[in-house]
């Protein structure tokens, strides 16, 4: 049941609209409910071939020899595609916005880095004939040591997953192995806090589970062009990725999509289009490449698992005064989009609360598993799980109602956020109040009267002074050694340190130099 609370923030809205705000039936409803909407796989083209992938059976191995001789002679086989057939067999998705280094082949050549990595593509008249040919392909592997745990992967001597990033972490700003967030002085905050609580949170990798699995059909068109029916979530991302990998101008392709059977982030990676088009180029026939359910679940990219450590300082009256976070994104064997999520995660700290001292280190780590990708809430879902479980524990620790505890710490209009921008248009407090009302959860008067539009700004708008350099170094050195106490909700009482005079602010860091690796808004321009 959905209730529109028009009474709240009514003075900020014009509700005299004709069409907006109406529950008009969807334009595509009739097609969807009668099963007549056209999806990519509804294009059954004459002479269409089927492409299937031979995948690695090892999580990390050198490829000694790939023998496709028997498979090439197998009935119905039109073409065997190897890494050498791919014009530009190395890419990273966000190279289109000038972020990151090409690190992933379309078909593995010397080495495989995860179980299920594509090695050979078989194009045949029927799926059955493709599978029969796949069984005749012999691959000699030389197994290599593997690493699956994000913290193990960062230790000296850990197996190198992806040679593009020899330290098993994505490189930020050409110099750091993580994304930083620094605001105020967390160590001073912990010193002043009545309670300090550090906890560890571990997410699980999950599947997008769309009804329609990833796939595409590519067909030669007239005048040297190719038409591509696709389930992509990002049409021009896919067009430009294919143009790069296949080394042709982007207007070689006519992509058609837009009606998709569920995405949730799992159809951003342009997994099938490059090989379907290459298959069409090499055979002159339409080629269909669609993931089966097992492929979608295990080798299509999942939501990666994050591991998060949070250390908070809280006062007896419930104010959170310091939050320190160390987070690891398990990117799997290649970057895909996890590098971007780590930055988004850092921007999200410390959650929707005004906390005067915040410290974050977010790592994008490579391991020998299926590359992770975007999924609903990318970069934020895991951090929200950790922060909100932590907030519940803190409320419990100081003996406060968890709803009132959140209202007390909620950000309000005019507050300074940890990424150094003023909070505007906030509404956390009102959401908590309305949810409490709906759940018949009693709040005390002062919390019922609280407002996102009141009591923000002022001293809460200030950027707090950073720690002195010596403190910062001590913090950096101890950060890696932090041990985690598994005892649930264990509160560690630390003696308050004498407050220190505020040091002068350091000179502002220089802006990134022109051409440094960073996001670019110029989509489609590869390098500037």
């Amino acid at each position, binding site marked *: 049941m*959905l*209730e529109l*609370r028009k009474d709240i*923030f009514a003075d900020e*809205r014009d509700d005299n609209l004709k*069409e*907006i705000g109406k*529950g*008009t039936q969807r334009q595509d409803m009739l097609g969807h409910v009668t099963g007549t909407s056209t999806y990519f796989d509804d294009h059954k083209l004459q002479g269409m071939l089927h492409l299937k992938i031979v995948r690695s059976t090892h*999580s990390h191995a050198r490829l000694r020899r790939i023998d496709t001789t028997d498979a090439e002679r197998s009935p119905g086989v039109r073409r065997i595609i190897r890494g050498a057939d791919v014009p530009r067999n190395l890419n990273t998705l966000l190279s289109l*916005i000038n972020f990151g280094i090409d690190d992933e082949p379309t078909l593995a050549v010397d080495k495989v880095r995860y179980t299920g990595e594509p090695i050979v593509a078989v194009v045949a008249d029927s799926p059955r004939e493709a599978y029969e040919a796949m069984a005749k392909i012999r691959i000699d592997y030389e197994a290599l040591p593997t690493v*699956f745990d994000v913290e193990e992967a960062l230790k000296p001597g850990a197996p190198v997953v992806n040679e593009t990033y020899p330290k098993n972490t994505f490189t930020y700003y050409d110099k750091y192995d993580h*994304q930083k967030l620094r605001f105020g002085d967390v160590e001073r905050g912990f010193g002043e806090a009545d309670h300090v609580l550090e906890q560890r949170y571990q997410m699980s990798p999950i599947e997008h*589970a769309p009804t329609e699995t990833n796939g595409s059909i590519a067909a030669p068109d007239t005048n040297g062009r190719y038409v591509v029916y696709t389930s992509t*979530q990002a*049409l021009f*991302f896919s067009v430009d990725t294919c143009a790069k990998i296949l080394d042709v101008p982007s207007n070689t*392709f*006519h992509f*058609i*999509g*837009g*009606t*998709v059977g569920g995405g949730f982030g799992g159809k*951003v990676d342009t997994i099938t289009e490059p090989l379907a088009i290459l298959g069409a180029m090499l055979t002159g026939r339409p080629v269909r490449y669609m993931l089966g359910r*097992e492929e979608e*679940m*295990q080798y299509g990219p999942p939501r990666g*698992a994050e591991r998060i450590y949070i250390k908070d300082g809280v006062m007896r009256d419930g104010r959170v005064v310091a939050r320190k976070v160390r987070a690891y994104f398990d990117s799997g064997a290649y970057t895909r989009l996890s590098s971007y999520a780590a*930055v988004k995660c850092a*921007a999200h700290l410390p959650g*929707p609360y005004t906390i005067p001292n915040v410290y974050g280190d977010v790592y994008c780590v490579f391991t*020998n598993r299926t590359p992770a990708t*975007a999924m609903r809430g*990318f*970069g*934020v*879902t895991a951090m*929200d*799980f950790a922060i*909100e*479980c932590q907030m*519940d*524990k803190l409320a419990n620790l100081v003996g406060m109602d968890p*709803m009132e505890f*959140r209202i007390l710490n909620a950000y309000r209009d005019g507050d300074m956020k940890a*990424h*150094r921008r003023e909070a505007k*248009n906030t*509404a*956390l407090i*009102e*959401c908590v109040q*309305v*949810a409490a009302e*709906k*759940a018949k*959860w009693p709040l005390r008067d002062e919390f019922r009267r609280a407002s996102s539009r009141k009591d923000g700004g002022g001293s809460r708008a200030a950027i707090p002074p950073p720690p002195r350099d010596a403190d910062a170094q001590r913090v950096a050195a101890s950060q890696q050694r932090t041990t985690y106490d598994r005892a649930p909700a264990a509160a560690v009482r630390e003696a308050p340190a004498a407050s220190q005079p505020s040091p002068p602010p350091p000179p502002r860091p220089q802006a990134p130099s022109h051409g440094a690796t960073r*996001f670019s*808004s110029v989509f489609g321009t590869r390098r500037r």
Partner: protein
Amino acid sequence: MTKHRGRGIASINYPIGMNLGGDPSQALVHSNPSGKFTVSLSSIDLGQGMKSVTRQICAETLGVPVEDVYVDTADSDTGPHCMGSFASRATHRVGNAVMAAAKEARGVMMEAAAEELEVNAADLETDGRGNIHIKGAPHRSISTKDVAIAAQFKQGKTISGRGIFLVPLSDVDPETGEMSPATCYAHACLVAEVEVDDETGEVAMVRMDSAYELGRALNPRLVEQQLVGGAWMGVSHALYETTEPYYPDSSHGPRDFVEYLMPGPGDICPHDIAVLERPAADGPFGAKGPGEMCANPALPAVANAIFNAVGVRIDELPITPEKVLRAIKAQGGARSQPRR
């Protein structure tokens, strides 16, 4: 065997659009000679209703009935550039682009109507039912169809518009993380009530109550389908799903929906939702975007409710019966917290 009930809450916010901006979308709007409009996009409708929301935005901006607008999308030959449907960006980014294109088209339409009615375009208004009339004089009117015919065959005007929306790219300070990640944020708070069986460790959902603040519910029914479905995706993430049950060990991965657990019809519970609207300064009619964030509060709310029910904290997902049971045993039995 005892079943213990508990309630947990979580409150969250969520940034709208690609982090750091720099993610443009374009739209084209044009009328055919009968005054029926087509919106050309390359954005994707994943089933969430992107086509319908942009159609309503276009109709409202043009001032014509929604039936007179059709959204054609995702053809790279005819649709102008869009980054894609992800990052909760379609409603906000594409919606703004459609609004800009519709404004331009409306400008031409009003000029053409003014010429037919021999008045100043500034004195005209649309009635949203397919007519343009002089302000305060509804009887002096012309239908959008007649305007389109006149524009096409008599005046030689194209009733069309181009729109783009771009949040400028933000730099990131490598040392402090100073950045402009997003221009607006949606908000939510969710209360989950669960029942935990202390003999089996099983967690059953009893009910959910929530409040979501979305800037503007452009189509409340589409909002409802997102919020209901999204909350269940969050519950499923909290209690059921994993592609690697022994993570970080990668063995025993599920291969189909028999092995990959998700809640079924027998597992769902009532969910009572309130929607708040605090318009975003740069949102189309103030809209932010409900897409991703609706799943997020469910995960921690469920974990916190389990603690309230039996006194155990499970900080590793998914919260399986095995983990709950082991934790209950480790603390020597269920320890219900004060009922809230």
